């Protein structure tokens, strides 16, 4: 029986990472209604910005993290301003956005690979052992605990923002109907710009945390993104707590799947879960 608490712990850890990505992705999706594959690239941007500041320049870890997160948000904002806004102007279809974001993901990953080489890098300070905590029979490391806490904090902040602030209400309005929002006088482009900034900043944060936990590679964006998207969809795309729930469900499914079957099928399990949900409950766990 001793293995189950650890499997649960592993599921929670995996879920926490997916949750962060899903939250950022979800925020952008509910507002702009398109699948932004470039979101994956922003995790890499955040992670490597942190690598540059913290490991190569040797700056303080907290300052580097904040700067890296802001930088990722900024890059996301620029992408929106330069490219996605043009597409929105032309009322481009889903396919166009998808393909364009795919192109951006490819370009950004390649640029980072040129700047930092495709070698594996780790943000962690490997000369000291990582601190581990044992909770109810399951072991998690300090980094993983931080990931979990960040996920909860981000969820809380986002929910608060969307419900309580003026900005949040504007975001909701734009999500519901962009046209009407414009008519009512909301600066939709500006709001969307900020949404991209926030969403991309969250992505950057995810990248940094993953960098500490398992390391950085320029190509990690796509894989993280796919898991995040699956989490967002099965949770109920567009809702914040949906993204959170979906992420943990995915984490559990994967880890219990690995326990019962074998490690090689992990990715396939994730997609099978997705397809099952799409077939039988496409609106996800939490309806919007």
């Amino acid at each position, binding site marked *: 029986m001793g293995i189950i608490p650890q499997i649960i712990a*592993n599921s929670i850890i995996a879920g926490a990472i997916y949750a962060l990505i899903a939250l950022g992705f979800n925020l952008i999706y509910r507002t702009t209604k398109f699948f932004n594959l470039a979101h994956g690239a922003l995790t890499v941007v955040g992670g490597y910005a942190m690598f540059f500041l913290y490991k190569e320049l040797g700056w303080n870890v907290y300052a580097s993290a904040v700067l890296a997160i802001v930088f990722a948000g900024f890059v996301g904002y620029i992408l929106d301003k330069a490219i996605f806004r043009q597409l929105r102007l032309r009322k481009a279809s889903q396919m166009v956005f998808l393909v364009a974001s795919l192109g951006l993901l490819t370009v950004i990953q390649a640029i980072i690979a040129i700047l930092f080489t495709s070698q594996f890098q780790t943000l962690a300070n490997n000369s000291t052992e990582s601190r581990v905590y044992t909770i109810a029979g399951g072991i998690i490391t300090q980094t993983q605990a931080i990931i979990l806490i960040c996920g909860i904090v981000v969820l809380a902040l986002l929910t608060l923002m969307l419900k309580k602030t003026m900005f949040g209400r504007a975001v909701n309005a734009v999500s519901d109907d962009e046209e009407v929002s414009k008519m009512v006088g909301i600066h939709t482009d500006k709001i969307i710009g900020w949404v991209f900034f926030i969403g991309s900043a969250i992505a950057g944060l995810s990248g940094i945390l993953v960098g500490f936990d398992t390391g950085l590679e320029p190509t990690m964006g796509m894989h993280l993104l796919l898991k995040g998207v699956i989490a967002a969809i099965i949770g109920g795309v567009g809702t914040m707590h949906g993204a959170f729930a979906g992420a943990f469900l995915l984490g559990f499914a994967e880890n219990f799947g690995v326990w019962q079957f074998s490690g090689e099928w992990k990715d396939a399990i994730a997609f099978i879960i997705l397809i099952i949900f799409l077939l039988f409950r496409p609106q996800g766990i939490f309806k919007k």
Partner: protein
Amino acid sequence: MDKITKIIVGVIVVVVIIWGGYALMGKPAAGGTITIGFVGPLTGDAAVYGAEEKNAITLALKEINEAGGINGKTLAVVYEDGKCAGKDATTAAQKLISVDKVKVILGGTCSGETLAIAPIAEQNKVIVMSAFSSSPDITAAGDYIFRNSPSDLDVAKGYANYIVNKKGYKNVAILSENTEYGVGVRKVFVDEMNNLGGTVTTDEMFKQGERDFRGMIAKIKAANPQAVFVNPQAGATGGTAIKQIREAGITAPIFSTYTFGGEDGIKAAGTAANDVVFFDVVGLSGEKGKALLDKYVPIYGNIAGNTFDVGARYDTVFIIAGALKQCGEDSECMKDYLYAMGNYDGVLGSYKFDANGDVVGIEPMTVKIIKDGKIEELK
């Protein structure tokens, strides 16, 4: 077609014509140069190995050419990117054979590359010499195919033997990467474990480049093995797995293979790398090996991929140079020379090729241990 389309089509046509003409004419052969080819992963997941093989070749070329080259002619290498994939390796080999007109290809690095190149090389009577491919399938790949890297078959048996007989661990868990190398080693290791009367407590496989091993590690921990054998293809992957094994609280000794034992692996594992014992296929520990390291490291830094690979590739250049000196670019003559070659004293030790082009005479392994981030030999 509208204007833009015409322009685009026109550009494509022009490019094709220019490049086609260039390819057809081929490069003018420099009278005093002998050109051979290289196919290896210069980009992609395995790029570290390809890049370091390229460094080893550069070093070897310099020495050969400074010593008079091949009977007065300069030896030159054209490098092509095989990307550790059959399709790309084939394209690379095709280009080398028909455009650069090489009669020797140093490559592939990955077994997939070597296996894909083999048929074209055989057809065109081009010598192929790999320094790192270990798939058992290469043994029968062709008359012109050689390698100074041992087949997985020989090596993995040694691993099982060491763990069970020398160290006395009968219950062992194995964690393998689901790639050509990992799968090859796993099969032989598990078979040999059973032959020796040991038990494989857990047999898990992970996909290439996996970063989250915790589920599999939980299973390993539950079965309480006496030792854990981590069998990766890339150092970073293996290192991450080892780190997570220790994080999970498993204290059993960890064994791994030479794919882990480079800088990438040690960096990824962090403090967990301490006391990990890994099997290196013959260290660059002999005199010649140390001399190579003394030359290599100041220029290219520490070897992040694999020291055997670097050493083996370095040797192959000299071996081929020997064949070229004897035969010129007559590949049939070179082929016979290689089969008949007596013991070659290289960086890897003293060895030659058997009737299949496989290497004979290299110790299947030496055992090393990591202490405080440094690799040391374990006697």
